[in-house]
């Protein structure tokens, strides 16, 4: 397993050997197959992966909603139950609606009253941009507004650890931006944040670190730039009428080449090397674009093959 074996932070979050299987009609499903993650206090970590990667199961075990088959969870040196009882945890679960017959403000006041040291309800309404609809009944909110209220409920306890399971699913583009702004403002107070997403951009833009999961395992763990570097796929597009794709693919730094009409598309393992080689060999190339691949390609390259073991770019010894 390629997850970095960083020394377990005394004061952070530690998942060790976490394993969970479910019985389903198709037989035993190994949802999470022994994962190890250490998160430092104050870190913002994205748990990224396709559906069925085991993200939600991992989060449910992290929160103590689901007992692991094997392995352990330590949250600031507490068990999940202890951390919950001490009010250290705030979470937005994957699915969930709000209870009815209360206004947004009333619901927040009700839930704040459960915690030992909550934030002020007015402060939370302001931070989450909910003042304008504070008096509205919960059943009259739009999907995006509901998600914002759920976020407000997750932070009203002033938790040390904020856990968000696919928080922006019901939101439009603008709401997403506002949501992540609120999240980053909260994280900036030294809070630890773990969020699951299958929106690759969100992980890239909002996390200090990305833990990439596929088929119940961690397939990559590092800063977003490192994840991209490990696959290293940027693409070069250029207009180049008469070049043989085979020849293009053989250029230094190029992984594969494809012709699309007048244009060629080069998928690169090292785009710096590839662009030099391309211009040297084919000076006629024009309209050149180099696309920063983003996490999307890392994601596809690392999780594409369901039969292979966790891909590891370092050759096995």
């Amino acid at each position, binding site marked *: 397993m390629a997850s970095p074996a960083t020394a377990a932070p005394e004061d952070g979050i530690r998942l060790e050997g976490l394993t969970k299987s479910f019985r389903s009609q198709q037989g035993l499903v190994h949802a999470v197959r022994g994962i190890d993650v250490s998160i430092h206090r104050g870190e913002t970590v994205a748990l990224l992966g396709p559906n069925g990667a085991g993200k939600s199961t991992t989060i449910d075990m992290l*929160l103590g909603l689901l007992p692991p088959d094997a392995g352990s969870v330590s949250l600031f040196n507490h068990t999940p139950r202890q951390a919950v009882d001490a009010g250290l945890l705030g979470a937005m679960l994957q699915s*969930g*609606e709000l209870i009815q017959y209360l206004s947004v403000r009333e619901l927040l006041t009700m839930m704040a009253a459960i915690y030992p040291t909550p934030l002020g309800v007015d402060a939370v309404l302001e931070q989450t941009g909910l003042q304008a609809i504070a008096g509205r009944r919960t059943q009259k909110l739009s999907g995006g507004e509901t998600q914002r209220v759920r976020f407000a409920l997750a932070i009203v*306890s002033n938790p040390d650890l904020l856990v968000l399971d696919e928080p922006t699913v019901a939101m439009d583009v603008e709401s997403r931006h506002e949501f992540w702004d609120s999240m980053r403002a909260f994280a900036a107070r030294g809070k630890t944040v773990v969020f699951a997403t299958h929106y690759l951009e969100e992980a890239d833009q909002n996390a200090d670190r990305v833990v990439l999961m596929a088929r119940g395992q961690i397939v990559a763990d590092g800063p977003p730039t490192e994840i991209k570097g490990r696959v290293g796929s940027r693409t070069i597009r250029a207009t180049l009428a008469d070049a043989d794709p085979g020849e293009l693919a053989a250029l230094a730094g190029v992984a594969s080449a494809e012709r699309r009409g007048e244009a060629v598309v080069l998928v690169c393992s090292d785009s710096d090397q590839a662009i030099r080689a391309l211009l040297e060999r084919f000076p006629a190339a024009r309209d050149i674009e180099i696309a920063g691949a983003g996490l999307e390609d890392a994601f596809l390259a690392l999780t594409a093959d369901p039969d292979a073991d966790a891909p590891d770019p370092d050759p096995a010894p």
Partner: protein
Amino acid sequence: MTNLVYIRYELLRALRNRRFFFVSLGLPLIFYFVIASPNRHVHNYDNSGISLPLYYMVGLTAFGTMVAMVSTGTRIAAERQAGWTRQLRITPLSTRAYFRAKVLVAYMMSGLTIVLLGLAGSSLGVSLPAGQWLAMVGLILVALLPFAALGIMLGHLLTVDSIGPATGGGASLLAFLGGTWFPLGSHGFLFQLGRLLPSYWLVQAAHTGLTGHDWPARGWITIAAWSVLLVGGALYAFRRDTKKV
């Protein structure tokens, strides 16, 4: 520690559900005036030893309060469907505090029904010494205990779609078999069946003051047995429900 703010908003949520009010308050009041108003001078209703207005006051209080108690289940089923029960599990709210809030709110809603039907009864000439009022209300509150547990149990077993018919139908049937609509007499099949049910003893609370006719040992034992059974069932349903993913 009882969390008063939390309970206050739980109560507010219950009070704002108008449909519920119609069944637990409106319906019993309408039935009461329709049945008891024309018969307010019947002093010994069907040889029960008590007046018709008193008999129906307690009978319809039994129906309304049963609905109020089991309607906890409707709220719980809705909360489960919304994923709220899971959300509560990641708060410091203890299971005990959760149940306490549910039961307290159910009792407060039942209290409303008791007060309003009491006033309705008084308006039709029901008049009892203060001690008997207290004894009667006390017996009703005790007899509602199994229904508090029944509501929680059904809420954690059934879905939003099935709980309405289950609680509405169940409460109506129990009210019928318990003697809400007519005295069950002192022999026969209905009587034998009725006195096995907690709803029968709710209705019997009306007999307080008629020496030896309110709650014999059998009443206390029946209510205690149902309470133990249904509290156990509620705990089982809750644990089974919260273990699920």
